[in-house]
């Protein structure tokens, strides 16, 4: 095995991000309830106290003082005094990445939103992988006419201004997650189809494939032993880069307010929300944006790493 630092770094960052998004909410204590009046726009690292009342509501404020008979919860305009017997529970909460306009924890939102962003991009890439491989293999093995037909189809789809099409569909139909995944997948398989076709055609003429055929190997065996292993590298490199593109595409649509409905904030729509209050809360747009960048860079590193391995072996 050839060691590739890029592949290692990229995979580690990707694994960390995925772990944080998938298992994050389980690893942490539940995020504090949003308190728009008292805990809005707290900077990163701010510590606040959550005061749970006997009616189930809770107040969150960075300034909480306990006196003999009451708990004084600091507010922006005036403090609220709560009788001690009404307070069920008090706990310290830390807003590692700050809080938003509604007093919600940015880190918790990023974990939830990241799950959406990641799964949309991942499923879109799966569709692209499936469609691209099928068309590429079909073109390479299905005879001249099928080849010509499929490759003209690829040319035709490539003629679409993809971002235009995405924006158009998104603005017209307001897609749910399923449609979004399908549209993203169906606009990004063409490169892979060309790649797979080219690889198969060039492998066909290579001496080791000819030798295997001359030795009387069955087509199934030749595919298993020679075609598939040699296709795996370029295909996975292409898919890693494609995933990065899909992450950016999903984020762009969400940023424009055209992605998944806004009640589930994804990283792109969090950046958009943050830009509306950027003078009062720089952290709102900064961290989701950095998360997108980290994800895309990790995928690019993985792509580079695979490329490095392929060219060295």
């Amino acid at each position, binding site marked *: 095995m050839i060691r590739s630092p890029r592949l290692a770094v990229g995979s580690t960052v990707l694994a960390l991000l995925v772990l944080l998004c998938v298992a994050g909410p389980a690893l942490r204590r539940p995020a504090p309830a949003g308190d728009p009046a008292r805990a809005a726009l707290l900077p990163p690292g701010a510590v606040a106290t959550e005061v749970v009342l006997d009616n189930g509501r809770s107040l969150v404020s960075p300034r909480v003082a306990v006196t003999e008979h009451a708990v004084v919860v600091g507010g922006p305009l005036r403090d609220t005094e709560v009788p001690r017997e009404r307070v069920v529970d008090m706990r310290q909460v830390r807003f590692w990445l700050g809080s938003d306009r509604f007093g919600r924890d940015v880190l918790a939102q990023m974990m939830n939103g990241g799950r959406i962003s990641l799964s949309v991009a991942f499923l879109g890439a799966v569709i692209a992988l499936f469609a691209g491989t099928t068309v590429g293999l079909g073109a390479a093995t299905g005879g001249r006419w099928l080849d010509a037909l499929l490759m003209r189809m690829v040319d035709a789809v490539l003629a679409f201004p993809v971002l235009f099409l995405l924006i158009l569909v998104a603005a017209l139909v307001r897609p749910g997650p399923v449609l979004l995944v399908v549209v993203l997948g169906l606009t990004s398989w063409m490169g892979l189809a060309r790649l797979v076709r080219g690889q198969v055609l060039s492998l066909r003429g290579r001496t080791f494939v000819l030798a295997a055929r001359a030795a009387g190997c069955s087509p199934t065996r030749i595919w298993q032993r020679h075609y598939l292993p040699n296709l795996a590298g370029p295909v996975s490199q292409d898919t890693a880069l494609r995933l990065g593109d899909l992450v950016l595409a999903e984020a762009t649509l969400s940023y424009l307010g055209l992605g998944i409905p806004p009640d589930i904030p994804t990283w792109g729509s969090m950046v*958009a929300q943050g830009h509306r209050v950027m003078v009062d809360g720089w952290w709102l747009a900064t961290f989701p944006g950095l998360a997108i960048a980290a994800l895309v860079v990790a995928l*690019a590193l993985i792509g580079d790493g695979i490329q490095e391995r392929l060219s060295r072996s």
Partner: protein
Amino acid sequence: MTRLIARRLLLLVPMVWLVATVTFVVVAAAPGSYADTVEHPGLTTEQRQAIRERYGLDEPVHRQYLRWLGAVATGDLGVSFVAKEPVARVLARALPPTLLLGGAALALDLLLGLAVAVAAARRPRGCFDRLSTVLALGLSGLPSFWLAGLAVLVFALLLGWFPASHMHSVGAEQLSAPARLADLVHHLVLPAACLGLVAAAGTARYLRSTLMDVRAERFILAARARGLGEGRVLWVHTLRPALLPVVTLLGLSLPVLVSGSVVIEAIFSWPGMGLVLLQAAQARDVPVIMAATMVGAVAVLLGSLVADVLYAVVDPRAREEVR
């Protein structure tokens, strides 16, 4: 070569027709129409129906499509529902700002990308190479809308060096010609930098890796053995072959140049093609959507043709293949 160009140009027509037809189907299949997006508190159902009839939106889809196709075939792009003026005029107004923004961004992309890649390749694994590699990698992953927001916050709102949006200041029409040009450039800096920087990071990464590949070639060793200076080896023998793939990139960036970066234009209220398409899509302004998509498709197709032709021009080995 001439035959190739002629054939590809002929193919342009059916391709654009295909893109336009699919777009028309998508637009028609989506629920609602322009008549439903008009926002006016006093609008009754009957009046909405009247709007529908006036723009022919109550007709069956195939009839609408044929009517549109017939008009386009005679060169008539129709009248914008929203702007109430010919679509051709709407696009003619949006194209120059987009070309200006895209051109400036492309120039920054190529110049900066080239400079950084060459400087990095002078001393591989040196200080600058490592620093620029990390920077370019990080920058190429940044969403351009995020960078744009940050740039607006820092350079427009906090420092106040550049305007946050639009192409001209209010009342710029009254300025003298040089002052108006300065005003335009002043507005151009932030959006062009946001588009160009991210692209330059990609170009630098790409070009550096091709430079490295070329350095390993035997003809570089031969050039060194002939006693050529390191500068000449880099600028002439290494850079020229390494620039070949960049030529392809150039052709592929034509679509962005023409159709604009929708997001950047939206953030900076830059009155270009991207913003026109976004607004048309939101208002269900069918004639504008169709025309803008067709312009986008022409740009994509011409871009790939230009890439292939340029590649054949600069690389004799490729001439056989494209014929």
